[in-house]
């Protein structure tokens, strides 16, 4: 089931590695006391440190370091008790320092693992090579003036985590699964909000191709791709482009490329080529960062239950399939909602209702979970009524719609609308007797071997009881009576 691309010379394998830049959740910037909130007026969240005024010195934000440690722990990675900030030197209009303070030889987090949840409940481990802390650059706006670019430094100096995967991914689908899982873990940890459309998470996509089993090919790096779909598109395009070049007898140039969302293609960023000589060296303004082991232990204690553990627990305690559990735990709030619904109820039935009708209704109405008209307790109440046979599953759908409209409890609606299921044997039997008496033709057909007619009888009985008869009982009683 491996992903392969057919070329003229046979099948090709795609090798993908992702470098994800995730904005750290913090009030202030990595090295200054300016705010980090999204959407402020231009240059209103800029300190003289962020604008790189002469003589200004960086002072490291303790909470950002803690967030980095949390993320490392969440990625089951090695925490490096000593790490070093270095200067990555290049010139660009939105980089006032002329260098980005980053970590290079000694990052704060070393090797870790992310477990991908693939289709059909399968999982696969992908290696994390490292994670380091660094400053974000400012923002350039090119379309406001014919001959000028406008520079906003609000983002300049905001803390980023760069999370680098091993080249372990083999298809656009896996790259998507990796990004979704990473985003889910970061959101559980509360270290990054994962909002790709606000630029809180962006990916540099490294792609190369090879014949299966052969050595790694030359890779290209597509910069700053800002949605999962675009990452997948850029991989597809880039892989096909590289295969064609190789099959035409040309060589892949190791280069930086840019993704164009409007065409789904990538193109070379030639201007960046020379800038690749970054001349890293330790930042003389910043001493090595040395972590106190007791502090790291303290942080470890605050790590919440993460998606993988929660998934394992849902499978074990609730008897859910790996696939259902994977969907339910992807979002922390939704997982908590499900648990509240399932509490003391039929857990599988609760899972079906939460993932089906409930999330469906949420999506349809465009509401978030906390703005929903039906609470977890109310949905649990509805499921209780199905479990104790007060209403049938079919009636429950009608009740649920009414709950969504009115915000009333399920038992109130069942009472008001008189939807209580008829589980009284004599009432159902009376209806069945009448149908049998009035339809001798069908009875004869059924007895003559046309067993499919049972469906017709069920339909008639349900109709006669206004849809309220317990379907299980109707079936059983019909079979019994028709056999007489």
């Amino acid at each position: 089931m491996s992903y392969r691309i057919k070329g003229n010379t046979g099948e090709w394998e795609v090798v993908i590695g992702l470098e994800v830049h995730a904005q750290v959740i913090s009030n202030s910037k990595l090295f200054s006391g300016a705010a980090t909130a999204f959407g402020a007026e231009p240059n209103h969240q800029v300190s003289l440190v962020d604008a790189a005024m002469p003589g200004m010195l960086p002072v490291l934000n303790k909470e950002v370091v803690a967030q980095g440690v949390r993320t490392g722990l969440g990625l089951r990675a090695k925490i490096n008790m000593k790490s070093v900030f270095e200067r990555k030197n290049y010139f660009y209009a939105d980089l006032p320092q002329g260098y980005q303070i980053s970590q290079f030889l000694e990052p704060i987090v070393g090797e870790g693992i992310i477990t991908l949840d693939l289709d059909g409940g399968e999982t696969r481990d992908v290696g994390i090579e490292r994670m380091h802390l660094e400053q974000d650059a400012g923002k350039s706006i090119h379309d406001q003036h014919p001959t000028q670019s406008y520079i906003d430094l609000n983002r300049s100096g905001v803390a980023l985590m760069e999370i680098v995967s091993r080249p372990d991914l083999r298809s656009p689908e896996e790259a998507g699964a990796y990004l979704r899982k990473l985003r889910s873990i970061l959101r559980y940890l509360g270290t990054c909000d994962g909002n790709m459309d606000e630029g809180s998470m962006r990916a540099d996509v490294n792609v190369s191709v090879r014949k299966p089993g052969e050595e790694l090919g030359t890779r290209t790096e597509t910069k700053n791709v800002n949605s999962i779909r675009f990452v997948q598109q850029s991989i597809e395009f880039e892989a096909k482009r590289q295969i064609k070049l190789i099959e035409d007898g040309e060589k892949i140039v190791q280069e930086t490329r840019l993704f164009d969302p409007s065409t789904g293609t990538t193109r070379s960023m030639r201007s960046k080529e020379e800038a690749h000589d970054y001349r890293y060296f330790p930042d003389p303004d910043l001493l090595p960062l040395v972590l106190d082991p007791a502090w790291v232990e303290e942080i470890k204690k605050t790590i919440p239950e993460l998606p993988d553990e929660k998934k394992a627990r849902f499978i074990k305690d609730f008897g859910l399939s790996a696939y259902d559990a994977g969907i339910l735990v992807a979002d922390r709030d939704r997982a908590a909602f499900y648990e509240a619904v399932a509490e003391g109820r039929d857990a599988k039935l609760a899972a079906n209702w939460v993932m089906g009708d409930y999330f469906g209704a949420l999506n349809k109405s465009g509401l978030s979970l906390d703005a929903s008209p039906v609470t977890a307790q109310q949905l649990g109440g509805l499921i209780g009524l199905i479990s104790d046979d007060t209403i049938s599953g079919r009636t429950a759908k009608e009740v649920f719609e009414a709950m969504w409209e009115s915000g009333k409890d399920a038992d109130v609606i069942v009472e008001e609308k008189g939807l209580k299921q008829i589980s009284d044997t004599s009432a159902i039997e009376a209806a069945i007797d009448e149908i049998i008496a009035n339809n001798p033709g069908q009875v004869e057909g059924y007895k003559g071997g046309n067993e499919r007619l049972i469906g017709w009888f069920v339909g008639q009985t349900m109709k006669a009881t206004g849809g309220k008869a317990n379907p299980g009982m109707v079936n059983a009683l019909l079979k019994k009576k028709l056999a007489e």
Partner: protein
Amino acid sequence: MSVDKKTVAKIAKLARIRVDEAQQEALSGELNQILGWVEQLSELDTSGVEPMTSVVEMTQPLREDVVNDGGYVDRVTKNAPESAHGFYAVPKVVE
């Protein structure tokens, strides 16, 4: 290791410093002298010696995560050769 004129020109370009052809020769001589001195230092066996990062024994000071700076767009853009609508306005840089 030795630095030739071509390397001098490359370093100057990366640092955005204009160095005339005539100066390049002299600079390569100076840089080679510095590198020669560093090479002399490396004769000393420093295996097992931690790199010195500061003359005083101290660790990285950390700041609490509070917003206590910024909010002064006028000061930030005051020295800019040109600004507009709160932005720095620079010659167009497009890919």
